[in-house]
């Protein structure tokens, strides 16, 4: 997993609530058996005027000019600000894969779909939770200010605004540790293989019907 330490980047405002993972990456792209290739189809139905197909060359497709991702001032954005319940819906990890491949490294929203939140952490995409009032301020400040960028310092757990003001955010220490070091969970877990094995052996005696 890609490490996350300090990141400074252009902000893209996604001003709608309950953005679901079907919107982030529509189902036709879930047929892929690969982990990559989703960036060009991020927000496909909102981003293009035609219906996207897997494996297509997207460079010639008609763009929806009104959609925020297509506006010149947000080109190269790497921090997404969103409204409540971002990433609700399906468990598809293709959603954080698509966001990451497009170039996003972090998101800021009042809340997220639980599974999407987890999936993001496992892919080095930092989901920051700030209260609604703070997110509202970020939306208001970013709108009139082309080039509005934020700096995120994971070690210090702060989002630093262009005016120097900063917002503290919470994160589970274990998730933080994995992100800062770019650790892969499986390797960490397998260090406890003996403990898992012992637990399993006990379970076999207590609830043998689970092991037939």
């Amino acid at each position, binding site marked *: 997993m890609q490490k996350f330490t300090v990141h400074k980047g252009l902000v893209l405002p996604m*001003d*709608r*609530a*309950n953005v*679901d993972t*079907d*919107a982030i990456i*529509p*189902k*036709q792209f*879930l*047929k*892929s*058996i*690969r*982990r990559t290739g989703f960036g060009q189809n991020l927000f496909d*139905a909102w981003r293009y005027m035609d*219906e996207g197909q*897997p*494996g297509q060359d997207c460079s010639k497709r008609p763009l929806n000019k009104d959609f925020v991702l297509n506006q010149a001032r947000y080109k190269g954005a790497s921090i997404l600000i969103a*409204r*409540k*319940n971002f990433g*609700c*819906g*399906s*468990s*598809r*990890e293709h959603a*954080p894969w698509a966001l990451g491949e497009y170039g996003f490294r972090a998101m800021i929203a009042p*809340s*997220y*779909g*639980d*599974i999407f939140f*987890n*999936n993001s952490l*496992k*892919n080095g995409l930092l989901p920051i939770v700030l209260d609604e009032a703070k997110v509202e301020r970020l939306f208001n400040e970013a709108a009139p200010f082309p080039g509005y960028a934020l700096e995120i310092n994971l070690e210090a757990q702060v989002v630093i605004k262009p005016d120097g003001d900063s917002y503290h955010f919470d994160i*589970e*220490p*274990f*998730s933080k540790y994995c992100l800062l070091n770019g650790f892969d*969970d*499986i390797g960490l*877990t*397998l260090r*406890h*293989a003996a*403990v*898992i094995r012992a*637990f*399993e052996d006990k*379970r076999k005696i207590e*609830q*043998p*019907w*689970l*092991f*037939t």
Partner: protein
Amino acid sequence: MIQQTLYDKLWASHAVRAEDDGTTLLYIDRHLVHEVTSPQAYEGLKVAGRGVWRKDSVVATADHNTPTDHWEEGIKDPISRLQVETLNANIKEYGAKVFFPFLDKRQGIVHVIGPENGFTLPGMTVVCGDSHTSTHGAFACLAYGVGTSEVEHVLATQTLLAKKMQNMLVQVEGDIPRGVTGKDIALAIIRRIGTAGGTGCAVEFAGSAIRALSMEGRMTLCNMAIEAGARAGMVGVDEVTLNYLKGRPYAPMGVAWDRAVAYWRTLQSDPGSKFDRVVQIDARELKPHVTWGTSPEMVVTVEDRVPDPEKEKDAVRREGMERALVYMGLQPNTAIKDIRIDKVFIGSCTNSRIEDLRAAAAVVRGRRKAANVKLALVVPGSGQVKLQAEKEGLDRIFKDAGFEWREPGCSMCLGMNADRLEPGERCASTSNRNFEGRQGTGGRTHLVSPAMAAAAGVAGHFVDVRELR
């Protein structure tokens, strides 16, 4: 003794070890695998040179991409076919307790085959790379959806890293009125608490109305817990649970059954146990529900009208409503009963079990699909559901009414196969998500119960199923 909730008990009985911050390694008993969210996980194993920790915990099937007609012709879409074949190859290489591949007569939606075969048992942790894994909580399991990295983690370690969620109780008391189903209870709850209302919570459904529900109804309710933002939904064990499980192919038998039952009976929240949040619903006031928008929380009863955004004070919500109305092609204040539909979909892991098909068939019997309804699709949840329905003659009832009777699978719940809505088409659907494009790009989904979907199919527009004679 501290009183524990059902969730507390399930959590404690699966916690292998914990980090200082509470991040816990949770032991996983049952791992359901399907073709869409697993290929990258198996590839990850391969790349890292790892094996599967416990292959007898794995139950696999192909459901999302499989066609629902002309099975003899195979899967025509080459990308879908490759995904299904990749699952075949992975299971062959890495093993599973049971695999119901495409064309197997027991194949079906992963959340339907688990319970009906007894792969899902009380007290288990059940995971799957699929958000509707919450369905299995109806059996007093801790069941939830995970992403592909976590699928790989479970395959390799038999555990998941998890933080304990909050306890939420949804208590539904009182007699359920005629014409109201588990689906309507689920939609009523989402209407009350919103699609983020259960975020960070494990929800237990309890109360006299829940006890009165069949296992099918409880599964529908737990299935929709994720639409209320809750990763897991659950119901404590009672006689209904035990009666459902007894004799299922993979349920314990004989002495093992007795031993298991003695333990399973403890899988309930202790009297007086503490919940972080409690929501109370009076079942007697419930009516059939119909969603009007593009989020399950955009829902009203069949007697209501499409809401007017002008009356909404919150700006973000108002904009969301306006956008949804444009997408759905609806005018504010339209009576729900005046909304005409183009298609009907009866199926999905929410409502494709035998009881659902019986309820729909009871409405359809002796009637005809309305002329303006282009297609009414009935897709059983599994091969076994299909067989049972055919034994009862339900297929005939549907076909006589002009409804199509199909092979099992996810079908038009998300339209990864050929079953989907065309742009602008409006559908009465028994599935769980009315998101933009969910059933096909530009398609318009209204979530309802099976009986309500069937009734809309014969009337051509939404009707109150309670008013049918």
